[in-house]
């Protein structure tokens, strides 16, 4: 069974080809990283996978299921969760509520039960809370449980967003630049968590990242993009020393 893969994925916005015929496969249980200079199309691939906008060409397959044409919320229901590069939390809600919204795909109660807050709703809420508390323990968020997100520092929000994605109990986790805006210490924590997510929780991770030390540390395989095209794929070391990658980041050597 194919776990996750995209085939000949492409999207154009007017005359701009943002992603051009990109294909890759993610194996169950690995950490797969997409790197590339600014504007290479990394986040666009994430948005295509999340069906935020439709792909112009190609297929996205998750567990032998074609995702094309589904509504965005169906992606989450199938078990794909994501974080955002610039943090999209529910600002005017507490951390606990944010994480509970992550449990949305596990809800089992009907509207009329909720209006009466019946015993079934109460039991379900208790179960959701227990699941959320596990995430809180995992990410050391105990201290912030009842704080409003709007007042929290950037580093903490980044972790909350990771927690919200984990609360959905995903099979595949998409992380859009998990270390952007974090200091070295927080980046270090993030690396530990990604390792724990992969090895401890058994969740496959697809990640976009710029910080090469983090990429080297946690990734099993890396895909390098430039101007919407895949230019190299392999282990972190292989990709980093690939001439096309060096050229994309640093420019080509002037002809002698």
């Amino acid at each position, binding site marked *: 069974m194919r776990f996750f893969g995209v085939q000949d994925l492409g999207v154009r916005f007017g005359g701009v080809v943002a992603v051009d015929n990109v294909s890759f496969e993610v194996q169950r249980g690995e950490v797969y990283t997409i790197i590339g200079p600014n504007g290479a199309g990394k986040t666009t691939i994430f*948005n295509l996978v*999340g069906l*935020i906008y439709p792909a112009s060409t190609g297929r996205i397959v998750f567990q032998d299921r074609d995702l094309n044409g589904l*509504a*965005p*919320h169906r*992606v*989450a*229901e199938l078990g794909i*969760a*994501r974080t*955002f*590069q*610039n*943090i*999209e*939390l*529910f*600002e*005017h*809600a507490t951390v*606990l*509520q944010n994480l*509970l*919204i*992550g*449990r*949305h*795909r596990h*809800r089992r*109660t009907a*509207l009329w039960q*909720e*209006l*009466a*807050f019946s015993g079934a*709703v*109460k039991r*379900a*809420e*208790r179960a*959701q*809370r*227990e699941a959320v*508390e596990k995430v809180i323990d995992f990410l050391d968020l105990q201290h912030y449980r009842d704080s409003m997100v*709007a*007042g929290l520092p*950037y580093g903490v*929000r980044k972790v909350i967003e990771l927690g*919200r994605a984990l609360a*959905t109990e995903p099979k595949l986790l998409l992380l859009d630049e998990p270390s952007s805006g974090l200091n070295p210490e927080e980046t270090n924590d993030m690396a530990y968590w990604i390792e724990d997510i992969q090895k401890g929780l058994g969740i496959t991770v697809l990640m976009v990242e710029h910080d090469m030390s983090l990429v080297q540390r946690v990734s099993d395989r890396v895909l390098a993009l430039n101007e919407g095209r895949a230019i190299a794929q392999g282990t972190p070391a292989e990709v980093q020393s690939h001439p096309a990658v060096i050229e994309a980041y640093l420019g080509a050597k002037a002809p002698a």
Partner: protein
Amino acid sequence: MRFLFKTDYDQDLRLFKHGGQGFWYGLLFVVLLAAPWWASEYMMTQLHFIGIYSIVGLGLMLLVGFTGQISLGHAAFLAVGAYTEALLAAAGWPFWLSLPCAALLSAAVGIVVGLPALRLKGIYLAIATLAFGVIAEEIAARWESLTGGNSGLHVKPIQLFGATLDGDADFYYLVLALTALCCIALANLLRSPTGRAFVAIRDSEISAACMGVNLARYKTLSFALSAALTGVGGALYAHKVSFISPEQFTLLVSIELVTLVILGGVGSLHGAVFGAAFIIVLPQLIAIVKDYLPAAVAGAAGLQSTVFGLVLIGFIIFEPMGLYGRWLKIRTWFELFPFYRKGMFRRQKTYMKSERLR
């Protein structure tokens, strides 16, 4: 000062977070139950209207304050509820049957109006709902065979379980029961997955969708519930004033309802009730003050609208959290005395949000 030590998940699930809250709400309820004994006839009428407007306010609060969708056409749902109730009562239907019908029909209209909301945002949604409100008012005026047109419609008193309910106290208890029921039902909804999904849509549609919230379904649901509550309010309103005509459901009423929500405090159920009380009491205050004003000002047309407008602007500038926000501050001042700080409720600046996903 009160410290809440949490030792059980159920503590966060309860409606009343501590015994004190239960006590005060209980006391309030008892005082309200005894209203026919302490309130004058005039005050009873005011209480009727506050109850009715609270129900309508709760409906609009759910939509504006919790789902983040604006509506400038809510008077139309009020009209749907009022006319449905008036016509069914005239046909001899009992109240326990006609009220759900009024609510359901309003909800159905709400779903139809909610459909554009799936594609429109912010000011554009406001324009669409405003247009709907104007159309509904026009229909009420032109469909004379059904609504009686501009000459209006008389509403028969409430028929409930074979008896005619026309006493002030009886009607008061009916309104009080329905208001309490709506408050509790909405409070329940908001601590359940559906309520959280609404809040998620309000704060970030894109991440709500990525968490598995079906945007189309929940936005439509929010419109339907909001319209249903407004319809219930409209039905009660029809019985209260016993005569309805299109002039009672104009654009100004819709704006008054939005004002109610903003003055009360966007994003709190208390706000809907506070706002309702304020909207009902303010015209009375204006009427009292009028006697002391120079004739040129007191007699000027649109004095009330001007005052409403000024109050609204004042609240938006000085107290964006509305009456409920003010109440929270006062309560916190007492709870923390003498440690209250001025900046405690200052709104934090939001960090950069991605623009391209909007």
